């Protein structure tokens, strides 16, 4: 009872502020609503007893990435829209991709009982007072079971980081 109440509370805030984030004209207001969305998602993680994910969400997304977003918003003049963003084709493409992703989510949820990985989405709930320690579980999962995907992902991120440095670096006349 209390659990579902907490869930609907955070889920409601997340959905409403996500909608507000898209519709605001002011970029900083959008960022504030995105922060609210991320925080309420963190709240949902906590309601699911995934306390490590709760903190990781706050530290990484809210404390790290959103601070960076706001930093960029403050430095760039966003009240002058770039012409290429206004291009109709791009708008339609973005809308189509969003629709496909949304439809995929809906289909998976609706067909979760008949898909090959049956039961994947309907996990058996653990006992409320005997939950496995979330931090340790994530550690064994990341560094044991899924070590290879984890390493591949980190190499990918490293490549992206080096690429960003190379692109952002000023070319001196000597080069």
């Amino acid at each position, binding site marked *: 009872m209390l659990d579902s109440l907490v869930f609907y509370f955070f889920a409601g805030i997340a959905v409403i502020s996500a909608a507000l984030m898209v519709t605001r004209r002011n970029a900083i207001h959008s960022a504030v609503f995105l922060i609210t969305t991320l925080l309420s998602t963190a709240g949902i993680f906590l309601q699911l007893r995934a306390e490590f994910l709760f903190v990781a969400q706050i530290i990484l997304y809210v404390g790290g990435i959103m601070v960076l977003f*706001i930093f960029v918003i403050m*430095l760039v003049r966003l009240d002058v829209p770039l012409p290429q963003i206004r291009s109709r084709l791009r708008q339609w493409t973005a809308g189509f991709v969003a629709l496909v992703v949304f439809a995929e989510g809906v289909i998976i949820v609706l067909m979760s009982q008949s898909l090959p990985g049956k039961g994947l989405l309907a996990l058996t709930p653990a006992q409320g007072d005997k939950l496995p320690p979330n931090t340790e579980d994530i550690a064994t999962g990341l560094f044991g079971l899924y070590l290879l995907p984890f390493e591949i992902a980190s190499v990918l991120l490293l490549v992206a980081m080096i690429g960003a440095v190379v692109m952002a670096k000023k070319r001196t006349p000597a080069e």
Partner: protein
Amino acid sequence: MSGAFQGVLAFVQAWWVELLCAMLILLVVPLIAGYIVLVERKVMADMQARLGPMRVGPHGLLQPIADALKLLIKEDLIPDNADQFIFWFAPVLSMTAALTSMGAVAFGPWFHVARDINIGLLFVVGISALGPFGIVLGGWASNNHYSIIGAIRSTAQLISYETTAGFALVSGFLLAGTLKVSDIVEHQRADNVWYVFLAPVGFVTYLIASIAETNRAPFDLPEAESELVAGYMTEYSGFRWSLYFLAEYANMIVVGAVGTTLFLGGWLRPFPNVRWLGWVDAFPALLLVAVGAYCVARAGKQPVRVQRLFMWGVAGLCFAVALIFALAAPVSFAPLKLAYAGLYGAFWFLLKVSAYIYIFMWLRFTLPRFRFDQLMRLGWHILIPLALVNVIGVGIGLAINSALGWQGWMTIVGMLPTTLATIFVGMLLIRWNDKHAAAASAPVVTEVREAEDSYAG
């Protein structure tokens, strides 16, 4: 109706210790923050051979209360061109983050709000990471150039130094093997050693990063008075300004508490397992009696009745706590023992946090402010690589210790090679950085004609 009342009653019965601690924190932390300001002014005065505030109360002891009253009745101005809601909301966000993150800090064996949460210190770090948004959004909402420059500086500084603080904490977590606050402290008791001796580099990097995170001098560029008026707080006045101010000092307590828990043995007294040093246990009670006796001796000499009452009140409080300390040993009364354990732990904990904060003040009045490029250089070129190397070093040291089966004091010996190697790497980094900094900030040679050089001759 009665059902709801029963529910509330059951909730209070189950959680009364936590509720009491939360109330204590909410009531006492702003007061402590006010008194830290007083102590800071006194320390500053001492270092500059002055007396500091002396007028309000004996030795200016009532100054924080007078300041708080003044700030409460000042006019609360909101600029016309400011973003009204964000301007109103930003200081509240800073203060809320600082006070909420204190929920997981353990002041004593049972003296914490969040009972044994698994993520412990990470919760403190995570929630206090929300505080900077108050600064950034407040600076932006003010619609003022000085404010926005302060806000941008603050974001850049936080992103840089939070990474260092995170890696420094990782080195401590590696030693403790857990994130639970109470377990971290108990492991230090079991290991017979504070982790500052096992990972000194981790502690020092955390100390530097935490000064930068709380925007204290020499890293106070977001509010650099000589450059930006008051940085992000320029447009704030009255109560909202004092919220920012309180948040800064509450954040100092938070980072001090994290450093104390992880590196300085939390609420344990020095050498908790050495039997013949047991007389140290009497120290808190004796200190309180001494403070109380001083207050009684000085109470009669106060010129105003309020000040006399204040002195008597402080003396009474000191004697009451000292009585709990004194009676806990002979009297076997469970609540008394519990109160003793909590207060005794809180005494040592707050003593260590005070020492930590004293270092902050000491540095503030000793070092000049960094230039912004120096700050970035220190963060990215020295501290982050050093913190990374330190994590690896602590890992290797732990492996050495477990391979040799060393425990207790011997772990320091096992840690020594990697610690020395880390310090050596740090020295190399500083040397390399000095060379490059000199090249980067060398004056650009431009031709200055004599006639145009207004400072010539």
